């Protein structure tokens, strides 16, 4: 049974048909990436999985359990966490408070402290800025905080929405290194990226989204070498 499975998911913004029957699956321990251009429906897919948008049709299952009828806090409780598009750091709260909120659903105080230390070991910059307000962090630091915050939920599957957006290339490489490390340590990751090359390089499998539909799928390497993908997303001819 796949860890996360979407079947024929249709989501609307008002009358706009944003997802037109998206189906894909994520196996335990994988990094799966959704690539596609702006407006293809990548972020919409993640928001639908998280319960922020309700699909009109289709099913989303986590280990066989239907998520579509659950509220987002119930979905978080079942092990889905997210570093959202735009990071959505709480600007008036300290780095530490942001991390604590990531563990909002958890009651095991002792482990929460350990996990905060773990996040600090991944992102030493965050430790230096522990008592600084989230709004005062740089873009890269905010991205680190968003990923760390998502980790704090101890998710079964972590959704990462455009972690490279707006970051300097060095920082992007760092962040992707850490995503790889996290995956090696056992976190299943669903990665949404516009930077298709980077994403496909670290992904086990990838899906290509175009105007709300999955048009292509394959392993990371396959897609990297696919001529259509090369032309459309990798800037090669």
């Amino acid at each position, binding site marked *: 049974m796949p860890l996360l499975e979407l079947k024929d998911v249709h989501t609307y913004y008002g009358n706009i048909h944003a997802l037109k029957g998206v189906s894909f699956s994520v196996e335990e321990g994988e990094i799966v990436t959704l690539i596609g251009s702006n407006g293809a429906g990548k972020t919409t897919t993640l928001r639908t999985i*998280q*319960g*922020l948008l309700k699909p009109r049709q289709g099913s989303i299952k986590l280990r066989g359990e239907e998520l579509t009828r659950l*509220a*987002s*806090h119930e979905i*978080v*409780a079942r092990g889905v*966490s*997210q570093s*959202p598009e735009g990071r*959505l*750091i*709480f*600007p*008036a*709260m300290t780095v530490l*408070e942001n991390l*604590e*909120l*990531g563990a*909002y*659903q958890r009651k095991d105080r002792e482990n929460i402290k350990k996990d905060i230390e773990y996040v600090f070991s991944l992102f030493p910059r965050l430790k230096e800025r522990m008592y600084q307000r989230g*709004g005062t962090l740089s873009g890269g630091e905010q991205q680190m905080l968003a990923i760390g*915050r998502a980790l704090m*939920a101890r998710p079964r599957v972590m959704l990462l929405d455009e972690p490279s957006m707006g970051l300097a290339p060095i920082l992007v490489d760092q962040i992707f290194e850490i995503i790889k490390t996290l995956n090696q340590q056992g976190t299943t990751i669903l990665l949404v990226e516009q930077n298709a090359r980077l994403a496909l390089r670290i992904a086990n499998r990838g899906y290509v989204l175009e105007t709300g539909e999955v048009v292509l799928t394959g392993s990371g390497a396959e897609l990297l070498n696919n001529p259509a993908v090369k032309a459309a997303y990798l800037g090669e001819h």
Partner: protein
Amino acid sequence: MQQTLSNTGRFRINRKQLRWLLALPIIYIVLLLGQPAGLDLVRIVETIRSDPSIILQQLIIGLSNGAIIAIIALGYTLVYGIIELVNFAHGDVFMLGTFISLLALAPFIYLTPEGGQAAPWWAALLGFIPAMAICALINVAIERVAYRRLRNAPRIVALISAIGMSFILQNIGLQLASFGKLATVSPQLQWLSVLGTNNAAPKSFPTVLTNDNLLDLLFPPQAATTAEGEAEAEPDVQATMNAIIEATLAASVEESPAESVLAEETPAEEEAMPPGTEEATPEPMLEATPEVTTEGEAMAEAVEEQPAEVEGAIEEAQAEATMLTEEATEEPTPIEEAGDETMPADESEQAEEDAMADLIATVQAEQAVMEEELVPAEDVVAAGRIRITLKDVLVISVAVILMVALRWFVQNTRLGKAMRATAQNRDAARIMGIDIDRIIALTFAIGGALAGAAGMMTGIYNGTAVFTMGFTAGLRAFTAAVLGGIGNITGAALGGILIGILAAFSDQFFSVRWTNAWVFLILVVVLIFRPTGLLGQEVGEKA
């Protein structure tokens, strides 16, 4: 989000132009209309010169009323912070809270020897519980019924829903009073008579704490030659807890007769609010004689006039065979009466004296705290005429406790953090696994509980409940919230106290009738030059 951003952008340009356009006519209007609105500098300066202590006195009154306004303002600011809705029904929740407080006190009402109605202080403290709990429930219900479904609708829709809710609650408040008619049905329902027979008429609270001046107790005024004798005699008078409180803080020579005068004039209201003055913000309590409250009349005059009235009162009192004759001879009577009514015969005098000593000690401690907070001790002693009552102490300390507790809750608890997270970004809060419906309901519950507490505080301090009071009080509290920076808890507290003090000074130095106008004028001026309010940075961060 996109839309709000572009909106604020457009607004900012307009505001810059508006500042100059608005500031000039306002200054002009102030100078032109200031005179009839009480801005008569010559008279004000004269008043202050004749008794500078008025300033301190009004500061105390302003602080107390401001504390109440601040507590209501917190409800506006919390709700606005979390769902960006001005909950217009909030003032009316406060009004219902005042009625609930009145009903909570009603079963404990007894008649004082002077003929007024009173209730024991512990009943008021207990009364905070139902007032806060029921108001919390009411507010949660309002959110569930009137706002939740409109959360994603255009803001104006929810706003209109809020105004509708306000009208509904006001009418509930009006109808609530008809239960007063049940008082005649059976003796068990006698306590409902506090609601009176006329629905729309203001209902008066029983006296919970006296107007006696704590300063007279601690620093006996030089004029009162019998102060020492009183202090010795008093311990015998005290019996039950409430009797102890009331009489300890006691009855300076001037006051008891004055109160009896009032008791005759308006038997139900010991405080004797002038009937014409507006409901929500009754006259500052220090004006024990309503006639002298006419605008601009100095406190000093009011106080100096009292002796004459006292004599008159004594004569009247004698004629009516009440116990008040002269201080020296009157005291035995109350002792016996109080003893008969309230004191178990076997209670030893020694125990009472101990109790008294304890009480005086606690009062002194409280006093010390107050002095630290309010004014240097020397000033108080020197001024002599300033009055700080137990009511002031109670209202201010309850407000401080509530504010500190709220701040602690919001800053440090898990739910408090969830509240802040929801206020900052609702989607991000949901991604964290926060059940935002629950958090929003919790916010309304806290706001409602605060409104309920403010209802009881108003009952104790100002002593009236009327179904329209929510509108005025709500408007002032909303003003306070905006003044401090809406969405900001500290700002609401600060704004409330500022508005309270401003209103007190306007009542004293300008004109009672124009107080609201002055309050809103200050609001307008502040908003022109600082559109986010005094402490309103947090809202900016949100956009």
